[in-house]
């Protein structure tokens, strides 16, 4: 069976982006291996760990569970879009200050997920933050410093 590649036109972090992909390639693999954005990480490949979290049209998703072919015409945001020429995103700065990471594999996913929360709910309760981030796993920090960092940004906003 010969399978044709699919032409995907999308917007990633505010920039128009076009690429060709095989239809059976995940969005995560397309971002990392075709587009060259390696910030999103592969963890579990089954929707538990959230290391591959990106946002599609403002909704956070596990990019390992999305086909690249699906995002034609959609608006994507990845961790690469968070820092600007002016400096780190407040969440990134807070993660540094609160030591909210150790090995760093889970960090891009946590940052994109936390941004997804604060973009819509600037002042969430701690319980809400913990519930929102339940789809992201971290094996290093024990979560406390991650929650602290997100709370810090919420309180300073």
């Amino acid at each position: 069976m010969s399978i044709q590649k699919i032409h995907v036109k999308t917007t990633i972090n505010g920039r128009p982006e076009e690429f060709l992909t095989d239809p059976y390639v995940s969005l995560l693999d397309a971002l990392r291996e075709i587009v060259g954005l390696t910030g999103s990480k592969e963890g579990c490949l089954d929707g538990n760990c959230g290391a591959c979290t990106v946002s599609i049209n403002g909704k956070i998703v596990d990019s390992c569970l999305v086909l690249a072919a699906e995002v034609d015409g959609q608006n994507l945001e990845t961790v690469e879009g968070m820092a600007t020429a002016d400096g780190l995103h407040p969440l990134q700065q807070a993660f540094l200050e609160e030591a909210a990471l150790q090995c760093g594999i889970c960090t891009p996913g946590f940052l994109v997920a936390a941004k997804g929360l604060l973009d819509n709910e600037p002042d969430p309760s701690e319980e809400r933050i913990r519930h929102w981030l339940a789809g992201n796993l971290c094996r290093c920090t024990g979560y406390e410093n991650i929650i602290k960092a997100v709370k810090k940004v919420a309180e300073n906003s």
Partner: protein
Amino acid sequence: MHPFVYAAPSTVKEAVEILTKHGDKARPMAGGTDLLVQIRGGRFDLDMVVDIKKIPELTSVTNNNDGLVIGSAVACHQLYEDDDISKNYPGLIDAATLIGGIQIQSRSGFGGNLCNATPSADGIGPLIVHSTVANIQGESGTRSIPVEEFCTGPGRNALGKGEMLVSLSIPNKGKGFGAAYERFIPRNEMDIAVAAVASSILVGSNGKISEARIALASVGPTPIFAKKASDFLIGKEANEASFKEAAAIAKSECSPIEDMRGTIEQRQHLVEVITLRTLNKSLERIEG
């Protein structure tokens, strides 16, 4: 992943044609949060994945006084972000807010959850207690079945060759109706139920129950409509004493297995405890 073709039809008719032509070699994809994991795990050998999210009627929700119609590719967040739906369909919302994490809820929904037909599915019990009807379309036309008849075994459903789930119709029971879903898991989030129960009651102005439905998950080969326990409640006073008796009956209607998640005895016990809790919660929601 094993190579497959991606099809994104724009009408149900077109999707049904593709599914009929390819049979077992094609599968519809709604949120994909189960399907892509299953494909990676080698459960299916597919030539084609049929993305049904480009079919407008399958991603839309119609909500009016009569009830709710959920397209089969509607994602959980589309329901719980709507205040009116959250108020009138509390059992569904309990499930929509605990299926996976937020990332999963952005994509997964009741249609896919139902079609996957896992015994532990969080969405199916709530659909049953909300008296949901599944609307199906195939080459020979459309048909509708009560959702409690949809699952025929673990991972198996009532869809024939080429048929697909189009929508779920859920009546608005109005004032006096309450529903709730709870599951037992060892963690607080992101886990598969050891046992779970959905309940609903409709209480008249005389304080008596006129309709009741109880559904059990993770305690049998399919989600179970606990008919005896449900029927027992009809005509009874809506109070703890009636609920306790119904919970004991529900316990007798489950047929769990023992596995790494729990023993038979623990699951039976959980069914009784959670049935009582969800009935009480349903009543609280009516009174609240």
